[in-house]
């Protein structure tokens, strides 16, 4: 073997040795890493399992909480309906009293007419008998008419308190607004005979009928009217020794693709920070026990979610407040 060959062999052996050392090192390190990674994998799986259990528990709790919230919410909405019904009760009583008076008066008249009829029959005065029968028939129609009127008011009241919303039907919003305005006003007057307020209405006769759930929109109107009366009442107290005519204006207009109902008052008005919160549930400026804080929040939901409309407010402290309900006329089936 020549010197050069020996040198080449030694060099090759050295390189081989170096490569072996490197391979040996890499193998050792890989083995170490494998060990660590297997521990890590175990740990990660354990952690995942623990987290799965925690997540499931959290999910169960949330589901339960959601169910409870929904049921509480339903109860609250129902309570609010009953509360507004309470506000209506006095107005309803006032409204029913009218037809009842008619029914009573006409039936009393009829009793007398029947006596007269009996007498005329004895006399054989057929001419008179026919005339009395004709009065009787007219009076019976009036009794029936006012009976139906009372029935409609009671039906409306029941509708108002229903737990589930009713169907959308073509509704004369002018009539609805007018009826609820009177119910609200008389309801308040029944509770507080001192209360005085000028009511100014401006109903556009060409409004047409609009597809709404009348009991729901009625509740919204009732709410806005009650708030307006409350605001003017408060201002009346503040301005006790000054000239002030509490006034509530209600108007309905037809625009191109929508109908607007405006409820305006010259009451106390609201600062911007109150305006920002009035549609939040449970927000109220009324003393404890006087407001649920749900009226406007539910009204907002009824108009925006239930009827794809809008409810907005403009207010100025010391001047008054305007609430505007917008309802799309696209679903209107009238005219």
């Amino acid at each position: 073997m020549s010197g050069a060959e020996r040198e080449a062999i030694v060099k090759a052996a050295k390189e081989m040795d170096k490569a072996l050392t490197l391979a040996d090192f890499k193998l050792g390190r890989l083995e170490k890493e494998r060990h660590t990674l297997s521990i890590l994998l175990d740990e990660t799986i354990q952690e995942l399992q623990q987290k799965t259990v925690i997540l499931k528990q959290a999910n169960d709790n949330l589901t339960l909480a959601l169910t409870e919230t929904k049921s509480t919410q339903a109860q609250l909405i129902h309570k609010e309906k009953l509360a507004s019904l309470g506000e209506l009760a006095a107005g309803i009583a006032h409204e029913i009293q009218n037809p009842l008076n008619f029914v009573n008066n006409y039936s009393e008249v009829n009793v007398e007419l029947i006596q007269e009829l009996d007498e005329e029959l004895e006399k054989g005065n057929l001419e008179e008998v026919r005339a009395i029968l004709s009065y009787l028939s007219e009076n019976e129609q009036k009794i029936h008419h006012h009976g139906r009127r009372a029935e409609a008011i009671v039906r409306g009241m029941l509708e108002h308190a229903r737990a589930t919303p009713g169907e959308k039907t073509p509704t004369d919003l002018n009539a609805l607004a007018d009826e609820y305005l009177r119910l609200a006003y008389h309801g308040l007057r029944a509770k507080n005979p001192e209360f005085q307020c000028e009511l100014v209405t401006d109903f556009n006769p060409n409004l047409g009928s609009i597809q709404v759930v009348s009991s729901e929109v009625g509740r919204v109107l009732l709410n806005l009217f009650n708030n307006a009366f409350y605001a003017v009442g408060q201002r009346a107290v503040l301005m006790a020794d000054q000239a002030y005519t509490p006034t509530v204006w209600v108007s309905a207009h037809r625009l191109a693709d929508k109908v607007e109902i405006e409820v305006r008052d010259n009451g106390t008005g609201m600062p911007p920070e109150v305006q920002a919160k009035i549609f939040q549930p449970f927000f109220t400026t009324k003393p404890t026990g006087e407001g649920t804080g749900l009226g406007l929040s539910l009204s907002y939901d009824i108009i925006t979610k239930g009827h794809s409309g809008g409810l907005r407010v403009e207010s100025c402290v010391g001047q008054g407040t305007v609430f505007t309900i917008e309802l799309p006329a696209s679903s209107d089936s009238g005219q």
Partner: protein
Amino acid sequence: MKSKSIKGVTIPEITDRFDAALGDGFKPTLAIVFLSMKQDRKAVCQLLNKHNVAIFGATTAGEFIDGEIGEESIAILLMDLQPDYFKMEFMETGTETTRDIARKIGETGVSSFAKPAFIVASGGISTDGEMIVRGIEDVVGPDIPIFGGMAGDDFNMTGTYVFTNNYDSDDAIVALILDNQKINVQGLATSGWRPFGTIRTVTHSEGNVVYTIDDEPALDLIIRYMGVSKDIDTYKEVIVNIGSEFPMQIQREDSVPILRAPLYANQSDRSLVCAGSVPQGAQIRFSLPPDFNIIEKVVAECNEVKAFQPLADALIMFSCKARHLSLGPMVSEEIDQIKDVWGSPMVGFFSYGEFGKTINGKHEFHNNTCSLVVLKEN
């Protein structure tokens, strides 16, 4: 600027090679000296003092001038840099804080040069390297170059030293402040450690001591990953190896994670003393060592630096001891290939913490990193 690197295992050997280096009329003014605790620092200093060479010295956990890594040896980089282009500072901590003395170094820097650059080494096993960067930054701002390393002690973890011509201390900072308008200082800090496992939270820490991670004693957690028994007798080996095994990557919002390696553990409270601050509440991930292809990546990054610094008069490398342990024989290959990028004389050592910048980051204190400094006289 001309530079030469020499190495040896005995004082006579170094003396011979030093004399040989001077043979062609080379007159060094500055020496970067990295040597083992076993070596006679005084004798080396005397040799250099005789020739009026300024010394920037640190003890190491291994030192090199090329891929052949010395153990318990001496490695020196000699440069004939004009004395008014640099200033050597040596500051003992004494009763002051690390940050305080780092500020003083920063002040010397700004009073000496319009644009200073800092190369620092620190002695002291539990010194928080981050405070050195912060202290200098307090004075000079965040954009001034800071490179360097924490001295080593052959991995005994008993005491690390820095030294200059007539001073030597295990509780001091030595700083080579360069006139950056005369000497271009570029560099690169690169790690390659791969994050693994889920993000964990440091639940209790003070400065650079980590007590608990996710409410578990920090040492217990690391021992679990290593898969060793908790027998107290095995602790010693565990403690020595933890830094190389599982450096923590502190997650940061706007920049890449920063590595923090445990230097040693306290058995009594099972805490870890790290080579830099680990804030309480920090989100961390542990790391696995760099892939075997790390060398190609490092060389590629060096070539990026070379693109705007094509020539070098000298190279200084501060490479983490943990990196040496995890790359094993591959680290020689890495050093050789980095050296070949510029083909300039080099000196380096295995350190307990590194100062430098990542390719897109700013100057920071790192662990488990290789920090390279490229010097070129304008």
